[in-house]
């Protein structure tokens, strides 16, 4: 006769908690981070923010001391690198001044107005994500300061990320290095466009759709999609693009912003270009065109039908619930 296997009490509790966890995961995923999960997150973040502020103030001297200690070892190399950088920057400054004059002249000829400076909100980074897989930062300005979801965040180097959730007092910023982030970029030197994908702590991947476009080490990549103001530096190419047996060129790039060591950031008061987003999402999911080798069977031929078969890539289907062209997050 069948008898249920006896389970001791701790194992029973363990199984119960695992089931509760799985239910929570399912409910939260179905609500896409909104619903009760979103409300709870906002509430807990609001309650936890004062604790983080106190601990942050209390531990800052210790953190800075430890940080300085670790920096000592890299100071010599850093000095040498900075000296070289100063020489290069001085050279670039002279070139930039000359270019600025020419741009001014050309704008005057074309009757163009330079883009107005965007308003921005300065914020300090309050906390990091809870694990190494959490590529986000909490900043100490929220809804009350005028921040809303999707606003771009920059530092002195360039694009840091974008706001993904806001409470009254704080906001959460998803870094551009997050593996779910894809940013359309333009190579400053050539004007060619591509897509930059985050890979966590490893360098980002740049995919150029024009296989003839040369990308060299040091090329600066700037924003070129509707989510961010155009022209914000995003990354610097680490190695020349090499052609692969595919439709795109791939290479790696590092963020121009100090993504891992940011302290102060600026949140740009910028409204997304919805039409641009739709275009970008369409670009990110190009249909695979397979030429039809076999002629259509007699009787099946229809003048209205194309001789190609379009197949959705599948990748990214169902994504972009926030309309940003990013997955999950």
């Amino acid at each position, binding site marked *: 006769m069948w008898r249920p296997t006896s389970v001791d009490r701790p194992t029973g509790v363990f199984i119960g908690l695992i089931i509760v966890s799985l239910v929570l995961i399912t409910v939260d995923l179905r609500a896409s981070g909104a619903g009760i999960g979103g409300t709870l997150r906002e509430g807990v973040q609001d309650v936890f923010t004062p604790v983080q502020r*106190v601990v942050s103030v209390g531990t800052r001297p210790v953190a800075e001391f430890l940080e300085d200690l670790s920096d000592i070892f890299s100071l010599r190399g850093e000095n040498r690198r900075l000296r070289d950088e100063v020489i290069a920057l001085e050279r670039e400054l002279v070139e930039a001044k000359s270019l600025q004059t020419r741009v001014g002249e050309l704008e005057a000829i074309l009757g163009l107005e330079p883009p107005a400076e965007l308003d921005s909100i300065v914020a300090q980074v309050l*906390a990091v994500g809870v694990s190494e897989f*959490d590529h986000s930062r909490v900043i100490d300005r929220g809804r009350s300061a005028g921040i809303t979801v999707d606003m771009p965040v920059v530092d002195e180097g360039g694009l840091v990320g974008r706001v993904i959730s806001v409470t009254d007092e704080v906001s959460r910023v998803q870094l551009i290095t997050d593996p779910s982030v894809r940013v359309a970029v333009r190579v400053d030197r050539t004007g060619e466009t591509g897509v930059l994908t985050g890979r966590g702590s490893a360098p980002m991947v740049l995919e150029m759709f024009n296989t003839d476009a040369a990308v060299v080490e040091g090329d600066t990549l700037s924003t070129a999609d509707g989510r961010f103001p155009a022209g914000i530096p995003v990354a610097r190419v680490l190695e020349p693009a090499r052609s692969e047996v595919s439709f795109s060129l791939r290479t790696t790039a590092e963020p121009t912003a100090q993504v891992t060591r940011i302290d102060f950031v600026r949140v740009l008061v910028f409204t997304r270009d919805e039409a641009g987003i739709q275009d970008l999402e369409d670009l990110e999911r190009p249909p695979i065109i397979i030429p039809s080798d076999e002629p259509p069977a007699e009787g099946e031929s229809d003048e209205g039908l194309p001789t190609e078969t379009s197949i959705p890539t599948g990748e990214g289907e169902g994504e972009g619930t926030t309309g940003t062209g990013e997955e999950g997050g």
Partner: protein
Amino acid sequence: MNTTLKYRRAVVVVGSIILAAALQTTLFLRFRPFDAAPALVMLVVIAFARHLPAEFALFTGFSAGLLEDLLSQSALGLWALTLTTVAYLVVRIRDRLEEDFSLLAPFVFGLSVGGITLFAVLGTIFGEKTLADAGFLRNILVPSLYNVALTGLVLPLLTWALGVSDKQNPYQV
């Protein structure tokens, strides 16, 4: 166990987990050797699960995980599942651990690696792209090593805070 002592221990457990979560998200904001930080909350769960009654240890793991979920963008329940599993493993192995303290460091390392790996795998299954992070091995190993380095400080401190000694039969608290 008298009620006062029970409440005192509950306060110690809740306070320690909140403090660990706050330290993990603030202290290691800028001081990040090798661009990583210890999994402090997991270490605190391991420390408490060594001494608390089994059911209480499991609820501690679950609650600590839920707090981490609520402080991150990961799906609600991912960390809860991970830390409940970690607490369960501690409860199951702690008898052998108390007999030989030299096993403590490898035990913490193994649990940390296992816990973070479980989170990464579950995250990927549930669409978090955790394993798409090119540095996922480093993200698992470095925090685990930091946890081992902190074992000598955190475990005795929390044992003392609970009001038990390592020599005492641990599950009587």
